[in-house]
């Protein structure tokens, strides 16, 4: 691979996870990519304790800086980081992620060969295979990728913990939508907007990131509840912008419930399939509760008027 190495800005939003952040930064010290060709921008999203002490030891190994903002959610933090980025390409990952050593190298190879402008998304792997909830959450993402990115050169959905795009295009496009807050889906919204401009998305499974998000029954439920809230807001954004609404495809849900059985051996697969069912219930409850909440707000507003 004789391509010139493009410069990257790796953006990492973080919120009250100093230990995970240290693991993430350690992984970045092992990237086999020229040190003068990437910078690391950590954006603290208003943690109780600013992770200065976590970042400090990495100053002699990485070109790294720490930015600070009041707590306004990961999307706003990513935008804050991107505003300071000097690299040609923005590479987004999260504080609970550890990119594999070849991450930037493989992304660079894709940018070198794909027609501009392109957004490249890598493969996210579960680093906690002994945590059933984390495994289930990762399976959902995998099924989503199989469904949306069946043609890797015409991909349609990437999660924000492993995606890269040219810095100038990101700014021209209008960054991440910050109205989602803790409700995820800001990545889906960004991908939708990117495609709406007629730009291309390429799925690069060789660009790997390990995701270590410890989940319990409660946090698993809340995560998928939040996804449901996000999905409802996403529909509203699409409605506002006059786009076609996203219609659920029953085949997708069938595939989702069947997926564990094709991947894992029986007893665990059954438990996982049940967890996937729970996750979809949580999402549905999240959607309805978001709808109810907004209706209530509207009633109050119109009642006042």
């Amino acid at each position: 691979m004789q391509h010139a190495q493009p410069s990257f800005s790796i953006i990492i939003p973080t919120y009250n996870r100093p230990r995970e952040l240290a693991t993430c930064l350690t992984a970045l010290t092992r990237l086999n990519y020229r040190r003068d060709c990437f910078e690391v921008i950590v954006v603290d999203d208003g943690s109780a304790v600013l992770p200065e002490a976590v970042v400090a030891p990495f100053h002699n190994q990485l070109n790294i800086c720490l930015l600070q903002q009041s707590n306004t959610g990961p999307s706003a933090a990513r935008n804050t980081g991107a505003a300071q980025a000097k690299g040609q390409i923005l590479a987004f990952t999260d504080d609970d992620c550890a990119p594999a050593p070849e991450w930037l190298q493989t992304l660079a190879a894709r940018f070198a060969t794909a027609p501009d402008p392109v957004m490249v998304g890598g493969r996210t792997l579960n680093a906690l295979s002994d945590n059933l909830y984390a495994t289930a959450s990762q399976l959902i993402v995998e099924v989503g990728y199989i469904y949306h990115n069946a043609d890797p050169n015409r991909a349609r959905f990437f999660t924000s913990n492993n995606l890269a795009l040219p810095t100038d295009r990101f700014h021209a496009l209008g960054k991440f939508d910050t109205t989602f807050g803790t409700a995820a889906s800001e990545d889906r919204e960004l991908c939708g907007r990117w495609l709406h401009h007629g730009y291309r998305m390429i799925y690069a499974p060789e660009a790997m990131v390990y995701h270590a998000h410890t989940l319990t029954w409660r946090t698993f439920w809340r995560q998928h509840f939040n996804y449901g809230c996000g999905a409802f807001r996403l529909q509203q954004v699409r409605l506002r912008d006059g786009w076609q609404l996203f219609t659920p495809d029953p085949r997708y849900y069938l595939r989702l419930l069947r997926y564990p059985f094709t991947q894992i051996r029986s007893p665990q697969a059954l438990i996982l399939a049940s967890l996937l069912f729970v996750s979809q219930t949580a999402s549905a409850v999240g959607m309805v509760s978001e709808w109810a909440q907004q209706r209530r707000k509207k009633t109050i507003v119109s009642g006042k008027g």
Partner: protein
Amino acid sequence: MGQQSPFFSIIVPTYNRPEQLAACLQSLACLDYPRDRFEVIVVDDGGVVRLDDVVADSNHGINVTLLYQPHAGPGVARNFGARRAKGEFLAYTGDDCTPAPDWLRALASRFAMTPDCALGGKILCALPDNHYSTASHLLIDYLYSYYNASPNAARFFTPNNLAFPTDRFNAFGGFDAMFVRGTGEDRELCARWLQHGYRMVYAAEVVVSHTHVLTFGTFCRQHFNYGRGTWQYRQTQAQKETGRIILEPLRFYFNLLRYPLSQSRDGNKVRLTLLMSVAQAANAAGFFWEKKVSNK
């Protein structure tokens, strides 16, 4: 995201053990995995026994290639096999091992989830009535429980049940050739793999049985050689890092001697604890022997 099973290259280094090799190939012929999705590469590490007949005889519809090298140790033999491998993944086992029928299937489903990791599986002792073999295995079990307490961040595997993505293994440089006796090269490889930022995952459902017949003499020699390997390994680490030889904390050795008490049946406990002590003594002797020899 192909639905097709990944292609494996099974690599078996061998040295003057035709009977064991025949049993090993026999077990590979029983693997529950599509025949056209794996190859077997036997690397003869300069043994005096011709293996052509053994390989031809055990060829039950599986694709076996026999390579020969002048005696240079199992690490070099494994590297040689890896360079000839056509598979997407390498699966290493020993000539005195018999992998379980679902070995490759279990590896394949793990690689589907973590395609760039080194995967290490469980090694069972196939000779439970041989006290020396049992004690040697107990030691491996102990090391696995110590170093691989967190299966997703494992730190030590032996090459009898170990798998890699081929490209990454070859680019990484494989086993260090300086460990000719085949002790210590596994620890060096694992440490270097982790230093590169690569991951190791312990997969207990990936099973290989190990049939290594030991007597009191060979048991002592085995652990003496482990000691020599340990010294060589510590040497390579010391050169890379601080220049000082680092040992495990005392707790490690104390728990090691206690381990048989927690793991084995009543009647064997005392005998196994004694054997573990003998193994540690032989190990220490080997360690200091090698130190003396290499300081000359």
